[in-house]
């Protein structure tokens, strides 16, 4: 390889013996350059390779031998580069040259080497060289070159790029000309370059003045216009959307807007006060106020002012508050939003304009009068006061002189600014470029005042306060912003606007730059405020109403809206001392929670994989708590809410589609409201998750296995490993143990896995072996369920193999049943005593048929197979805990439903839809009463409420009463039916027990063969945290709901 590289350059010259990394070789390359000053077809490749080799030697020299740099400088070798470039030698040479320069500048590590390269201003000549920017490849390499250089900027090197005497800063000004380039990577590079420049400018007053005075206004005004144009396009996209077809484009535009906000924020957090003032002024007065905020309140008003729709405006403002935390900006923005009379914004503006005598275009979204390129050009010419003097690397030594220069300059500027201050009113006649400059000074002064002087801010606050006072206390509620918020939250049809409003409130209250006082005026406390004793009652009531709506079967509240409501409510009423929520509101919230329990009850057992869904929802909810910033990055919420998953919209951001999603949604609503209710009452969660990591047997635990059933086996893992283990089955887990050498009868756990996620199959040609797989549930949507165990277990004989298989199959069923019963307890459904759960009774064996199997087809088959359905029925009857499933069955079998009281079977039956359950009837009838109450209580206060508690009581009574009688009535007839599948002889014990009907026969046998593992002997805990008595949990919420019904009205005034 070494040889090839050499021959490539030296080929034909007979100098291949030379070491290519040496001064000599550089001299030789210099010779090549002098011989080939004109680029031709023939020598192109030679020249390119020569330049490349020079680069390599320079990088080598940087690390090994500085003499090569002396030679490079002495011979002015950069001139050759420039010379080649200027010959219009075509893309190939241009690209290669730019790339080698890139490599050169990127890999130089010594500052002095860098100074050498930057001296003589050749690099600036390359920067200003007019490349063919229509060529995407040249453009890409060129902008990368500028980016590379900008990464090399520091206090010293900056002098090679910025010349304060000539007002030349090619690196920066050439780069920002591409700020709106169609290629996104180019725009990103431009942003990088500007940020690098701003960062360095902090320590360089002269440069800072140059950037602010000569470039800031043209650049920022064009940038702001560019952002605004995209926003209008975005709004168009939302308005003209049909059937969500614009989603692709919309998400690009939203991402673009976010990119811009993040970029602006990155500039602001560099914390360069000079720049921030200009930028804040432009953002506020040219974009946020005239376009976003104006659109909040003036939707219906005509006029030619550019406008965007309300949801888009709310959405974008939320993004602004989520991303930008620059105090002067967010406070001014919030001030107008919260306290300004938005419709009269422009009248006010004119006063401001008069007072400040700034440009009349202030606070208006208009196109800059000239292009950025032209503005820069004019500013540059205007600034040329000195004879052109290019920066030189020798400047490094003259640093002290230079330090004086800018200081004087700055003073001069300041004086000039003072002069203009007085006369700026009559400036119309003066030159355009001059005007720009003065306006900057004027404006930056203004915003400085507004930003820094807290006294002034206090004054405005007082003004506002006194203004509010004249209109009496109630004036607070007439503020247009709050009206709009309440109106959006009141929408009964959907939560389209509500979600945005909640996001905006959340974003404003979580903004670090925000003055808490501003928010306190609308009683929206920032999180973690130590002392607060009131909260915004109308808002809280509306949030609770959203929760109540979400808990309805046909509620139109998306999960994201619900979660955000919970967050905001907690933020309002939770203090370090506890919850300050009024009893009446707390009672309403309990009502909503109770509704959510009813909602889940409809679906309990309604789906075969209920347990898996229940646990999966809990996992995904706790592992991925709501991130509002991420939520507001998703463009899909800008389109009206939809229900279909075909759009690819995330589940939490749309309505459910089909029974499975309705179940998932109901479960989530239940989790959220349960957690909220517990938190507000200051109680810890003791029931969820159903499996707590700390309760499980873990690898290396040492267990007392005396009196436990252990089956010896050989475990052959997938990768060929083979170990001797004892198999033990616990309530929730199976484990593989190894005898503990220190204690007889004890074992060390080598592996433990959840039975519920286990899959057991026989091995075709070996009756002593079982294939066992245990999957770990997927932790993220991108990952697949990961098998934590995939092995073949070989037992000493086929009897032990069958025993093991049964133990495992049984265990799996038992584990799942235990969990289902705990869910029943959570849903206030009565459950059977635990003793029966632990025994392998006949009833439980027949229940194998309907229990959910994650990895098996049977679960699906079950619903269509009449025998299976009947057996479901049977098992349900024997387990009184499964009340709702029973209720579903009632509807599908008319003969039985006649036994139940009318209130339970009132709904039309037979469709199979789970929403026909008795509790469904009650909850829907209770909807209006709870939902209405906070809204319009003063006018119709008590009409619907008295019915509410009665109805509920009736419902739950019928539920409870009807059950035992039905059980008695049906048990005999059904039992025979359920046994029929088990009569099929067990012919193929080697095939999975779980999939086959033979399971039943075998499980009956298993009862006699192996008694269940005594949980206490394995480890006393593992499992059964005490289940709450159903009676207590059942009656309690009812009482609270009754309490809630009455006093809602008074809370309104």
């Amino acid at each position: 390889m070494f040889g090839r590289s050499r021959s490539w350059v030296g080929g034909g010259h007979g100098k291949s013996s030379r070491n290519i990394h040496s001064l000599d070789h550089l001299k030789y390359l210099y010779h090549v350059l002098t011989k080939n000053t004109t680029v031709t077809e023939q020598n192109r490749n030679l020249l390119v390779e020569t330049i490349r080799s020079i680069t390599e030697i320079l990088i080598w020299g940087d690390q090994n031998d500085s003499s090569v740099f002396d030679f490079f400088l002495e011979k002015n070798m950069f001139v050759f580069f420039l010379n080649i470039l200027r010959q219009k030698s075509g893309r190939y040479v241009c690209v290669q040259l730019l790339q080698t320069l890139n490599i050169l500048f990127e890999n130089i590590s010594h500052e002095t080497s860098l100074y050498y390269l930057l001296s003589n201003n050749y690099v600036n000549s390359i920067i200003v060289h007019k490349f063919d920017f229509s060529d995407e490849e040249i453009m890409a390499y060129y902008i990368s070159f500028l980016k590379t250089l900008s990464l090399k900027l520091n206090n010293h090197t900056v002098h090679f790029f910025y010349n304060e005497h000539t007002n030349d800063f090619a690196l920066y000004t050439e780069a920002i000309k591409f700020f709106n380039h169609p290629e996104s990577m180019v725009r990103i590079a431009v942003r990088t370059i500007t940020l690098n420049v701003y960062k360095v400018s902090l320590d360089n007053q002269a440069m800072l003045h140059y950037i602010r005075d000569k470039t800031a206004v043209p650049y920022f005004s064009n940038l702001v216009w560019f952002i605004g144009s995209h926003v209008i396009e975005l709004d168009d996209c939302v308005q003209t959307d049909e059937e969500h077809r614009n989603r692709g484009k919309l998400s690009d535009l939203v991402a673009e807007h976010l990119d811009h906000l993040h970029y602006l924020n990155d500039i602001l957090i560099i914390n360069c006060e000079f720049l921030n003032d200009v930028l804040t002024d432009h953002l506020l007065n040219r974009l946020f106020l005239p376009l976003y905020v104006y659109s909040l309140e003036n939707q219906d008003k005509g006029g030619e002012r550019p406008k965007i729709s309300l949801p888009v405006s709310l959405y974008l403002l939320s993004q602004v508050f989520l991303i930008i935390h620059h105090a002067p900006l967010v406070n001014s923005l919030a001030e107008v939003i919260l306290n300004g009379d938005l419709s009269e914004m422009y009248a006010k503006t004119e006063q401001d304009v008069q007072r400040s005598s700034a440009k009349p275009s202030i606070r208006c979204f208009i196109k800059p009068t000239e292009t950025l390129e032209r503005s820069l050009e004019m500013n540059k010419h205007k600034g040329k006061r000195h004879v052109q003097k290019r920066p030189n690397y020798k400047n490094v030594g003259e640093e002290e002189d230079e330090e004086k220069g800018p200081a004087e300059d700055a003073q001069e500027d300041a004086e000039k600014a003072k002069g203009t201050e007085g006369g700026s009113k009559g400036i119309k006649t003066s030159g355009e470029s001059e005007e720009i400059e003065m306006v900057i000074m004027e404006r930056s002064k203004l915003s400085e005042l507004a930003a820094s002087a807290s006294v002034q801010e206090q004054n405005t606050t007082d003004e506002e306060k006194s203004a509010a006072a004249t209109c009496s206390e109630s004036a607070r509620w007439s503020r247009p912003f709050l009206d709009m918020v309440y109106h959006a939250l009141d929408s009964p049809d959907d939560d389209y606007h509500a979600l945005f409003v909640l996001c905006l409130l959340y974003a404003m209250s979580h903004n670090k730059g925000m003055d808490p006082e501003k928010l306190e005026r609308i009683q929206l406390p920032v999180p973690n405020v130590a002392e607060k004793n009131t909260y915004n009652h109308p808002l809280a009531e509306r949030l609770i109403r959203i929760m109540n709506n979400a808990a309805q079967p046909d509620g139109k509240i998306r999960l994201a809206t619900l979660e955000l409501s919970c967050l905001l409510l907690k933020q309002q009423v939770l203090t370090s001392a506890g919850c300050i929520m009024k009893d009446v509101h707390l009672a309403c919230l309990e009502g909503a929670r109770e509704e959510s329990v009813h909602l889940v009850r409809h679906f309990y057992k309604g789906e075969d994989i209920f347990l898996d869904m229940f646990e999966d929802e809990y996992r995904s909810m706790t592992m991925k708590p709501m991130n509002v910033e991420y939520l507001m990055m998703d463009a899909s919420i800008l389109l009206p809410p939809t229900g279909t998953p075909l759009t690819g919209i995330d589940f939490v951001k749309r309505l459910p589609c089909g029974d499975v999603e309705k179940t998932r949604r109901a479960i989530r609503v239940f989790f959220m409201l349960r957690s909220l209710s517990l938190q507000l009452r200051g109680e810890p969660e003791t029931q969820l998750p159903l499996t707590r990591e700390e309760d499980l047997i873990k690898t290396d635990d040492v267990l007392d296995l005396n009196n436990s059933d252990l089956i010896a086996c050989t475990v052959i893992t997938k990768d060929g490993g083979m170990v001797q283990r004892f198999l033990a089955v616990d309530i929730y887990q199976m484990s593989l143990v190894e005898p503990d050498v220190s204690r007889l009868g004890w074992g060390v756990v080598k592996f433990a896995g959840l039975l519920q996620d286990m899959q057991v199959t026989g091995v075709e040609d070996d009756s002593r072996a079982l294939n066992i797989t245990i999957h770990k549930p997927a932790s993220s949507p991108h990952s697949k369920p990961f098998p934590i165990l995939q092995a073949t277990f070989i037992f000493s004989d086929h009897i032990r193999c069958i025993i093991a298989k049964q133990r495992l199959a049984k265990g799996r069923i038992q584990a799942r049943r235990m969990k289902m019963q705990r869910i029943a307890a959570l849903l206030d459904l009565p459950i059977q005593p635990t003793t029966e759960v632990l025994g392998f009774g006949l009833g439980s064996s027949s229940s194998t048929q309907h229990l959910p199997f994650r990895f098996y087809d049977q679960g699906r088959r079950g619903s269509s197979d009449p025998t299976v359905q009947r057996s479901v029925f049977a098992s349900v009857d024997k387990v009184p805990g499964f009340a709702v499933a029973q209720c579903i069955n009632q509807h599908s079998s008319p003969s039985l439903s006649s036994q139940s009281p009318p209130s339970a079977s009132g709904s039309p039956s037979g469709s199979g839809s789970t929403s026909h359950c008795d509790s469904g009837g009650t909850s829907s009838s209770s909807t209006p009463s709870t939902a209405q109450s906070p809204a319009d209580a003063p006018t119709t206060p008590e009409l619907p409420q008295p019915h509410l508690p009665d109805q509920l009581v009736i419902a739950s009574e019928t539920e409870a009463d009807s059950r035992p009688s039905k059980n008695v009535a049906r048990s005999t007839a059904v039992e025979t039916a359920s046994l029929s599948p088990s009569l099929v002889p067990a012919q193929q014990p080697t095939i999975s027990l779980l999939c086959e009907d033979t399971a039943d026969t075998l499980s009956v046998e298993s009862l006699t063969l192996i008694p269940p593992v005594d949980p206490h002997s394995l480890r006393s805990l593992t499992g059964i945290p005490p289940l709450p008595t159903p009676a207590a949990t059942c009656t309690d919420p009812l009482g609270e709901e009754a309490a809630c019904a009455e006093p809602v009205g008074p809370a309104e005034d």
Partner: protein
Amino acid sequence: MTYAYLFKYIIIGDTGVGKSCLLLQFTDKRFQPVHDLTIGVEFGARMVNIDGKQIKLQIWDTAGQESFRSITRSYYRGAAGALLVYDITRRETFNHLTSWLEDARQHSSSNMVIMLIGNKSDLESRRDVKREEGEAFAREHGLIFMETSAKTACNVEEAFINTAKEIYRKIQQGLFDVHNEANGIKIGPQQSISTSVGPSASQRNSRDIGSNSGCC
């Protein structure tokens, strides 16, 4: 030089894992890494051939720009493929993969192809992260995995080209909207630009492929 598609890649990972060296090794083999001279670059382009189609790869390294949040998030979004690189001799670079991946998933289009690369496979004696660990991480997160060495050029070609193949496959499945350039994919200009091409890097590279394979 005309092409059927242009794919934009980004390279991400902790500093010092050899991102820019990988990039240079792929785009310009004339810089031989044998001389104890570490050379890298932050941008490069190269033509590759996939299924008889000329495809141009444009690779952007994000090094040095991590301090600006706006920059990294924009880069992610504009790319069709990402090489997520760690250093097999430094475990901490492996441990940080999760947060890199989280960022990438958050900001990129869901179709972005991510290739996990354990670099510096030539330093077997100092290995700190087992190959199996890389494989397991990739499997768990749905990534393609490879160990490479920018120094010996081992697997470098394959890493970039396999990523391109995967993107190409997704295009053919209709997963990528090729008309939306924000995805990091661009359809080539219809007319062929008639610039005669010398022995460019790509042509010589294609010659080198044979000699590189089979070193790891």
